[in-house]
């Protein structure tokens, strides 16, 4: 039964949503972490705080915010609808957006910490070898910071896998379309289908444990440091 749950439609959708959300959060998080840790952009502290908000906000606030912006009557939602006849609401893309927002803080925090630990002298040395800023970032900074970033990314993936509240408000729980594992569990419990709820809960827990173990491994791997 656990195996059935692991291969069930809701769990597969959860994996797909979480993977895409983690990818978006990683790209966005890296760019933001670089802005925060490596530039003197005014207001970068506020920017970081705003991006960290989903970590502490009630998921309902996040979901409501997305609805207000991306809903049919929201400014972005109305525009997307007019231009492309496209809507995130009640679409699994909406779940990806919500999961990206909740995963972003974990990538951002891990990446900015990891970037801050990279020795600036190594970057300076690379620049004397005529590397561009982007070249330094890709060839020196990122390779040194990657264990921390990867640990944060895996944590973000685990968080995205567990996303429920905001996604439910934005994407709904449409079986076969937007119903992720978390939502299927909710529906099973509401309907008193305890066996199905338990099987899916165990499957999600098992998967999350694996991801968290992997994340811890990478956290323990220390970045290469210069010998003093």
């Amino acid at each position, binding site marked *: 039964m656990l195996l059935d749950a692991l291969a069930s439609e809701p769990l597969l959708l959860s994996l797909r949503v979480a993977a895409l959300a983690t990818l978006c959060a990683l790209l966005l998080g890296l760019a933001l972490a670089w802005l925060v840790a490596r530039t003197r952009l005014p207001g970068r502290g506020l920017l970081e705080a705003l991006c960290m908000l989903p970590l502490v906000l009630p998921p309902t606030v996040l979901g409501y915010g997305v*609805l207000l912006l991306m*809903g*049919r*009557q929201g400014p972005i939602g109305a525009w997307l609808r007019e231009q492309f006849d496209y809507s995130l*609401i*009640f679409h699994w893309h909406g779940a990806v957006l919500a999961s990206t927002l909740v995963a972003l803080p974990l990538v951002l925090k891990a990446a900015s910490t990891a970037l801050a630990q990279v020795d600036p002298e190594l970057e300076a040395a690379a620049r004397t070898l005529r590397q561009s800023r982007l070249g330094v970032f890709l060839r020196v900074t990122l390779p040194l910071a990657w264990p921390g970033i990867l640990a944060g990314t895996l944590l973000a993936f685990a968080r995205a896998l567990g996303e429920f509240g905001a996604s439910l408000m934005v994407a*709904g*729980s*449409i*079986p076969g379309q937007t119903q992720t594992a978390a939502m299927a569990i909710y*529906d099973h*419990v*509401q*309907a*008193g*289908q305890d066996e199905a709820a338990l099987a899916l809960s165990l499957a999600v827990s098992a998967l999350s444990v694996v991801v968290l173990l992997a994340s811890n491994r990478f956290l323990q791997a220390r970045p290469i440091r210069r010998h003093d």
Partner: protein
Amino acid sequence: MLRRALLLLLLPLSVQGQELTVSAAASLADAFKALTPGFEAAHPGAKLRFNSAASGQLLQQIAQGAPVDVFASADEATMDRAQQFITPPSRRVFASNELVLVTPPGSALSSLADLNLAGVKRIAVGKPATVPVGRYTQQALESARMWQALQRKIVPADNVRQVLDYVARGEVEAGFVYRSDAQIAKRRVRAAMTVGGHEPVRYPVAVLQGSRQPALAQAFVNYLLGQPAQALLQQQGFGTP
């Protein structure tokens, strides 16, 4: 100081002796709120508290031991499943309702067949497993031989008020609610038609076996059947039992 603060956190929330918890189907929320002053005036010291959700959700809470005194469901089927938790002689039907197709204002939808149009992309329907209005909707659409064909368009909702909200926000092109819901939200949604082809919508109420105040709970059931409550329910769009 710190110890006192900790103790305060651990204190139970204040519960008055005469507090009555009523788990009521989502569609009853406004009507029950409106009849609270009348009941509390007739029973000095009594305080009503409402727990509002889909009837199926309320049943699960009761089955798991929620401290509830009175249960009012939006269908007989859910009350039948609550049989082992209620005191059977207290069970009474106190209201009825109708199933209505609603749309955002300005829509031209006027029949069930219109739901097949390409312009109708999303239809909000209560989850049939837990939400009575969803079950009535499924019956109606099955009678019209449309349930299967419309599956791709259906957005499941947690309770009837969520259906109403989806329609009012314009996130769906249509939804199925009760006459009383459509009346409450008449400025935000348009009632397109009354839908038949389902069991009659009847609201049973009963006192729960676990009630700590069975006498007051029974008084509430009786109050629902009395003239003032009935007049108020009908004013809010409900039908006679």
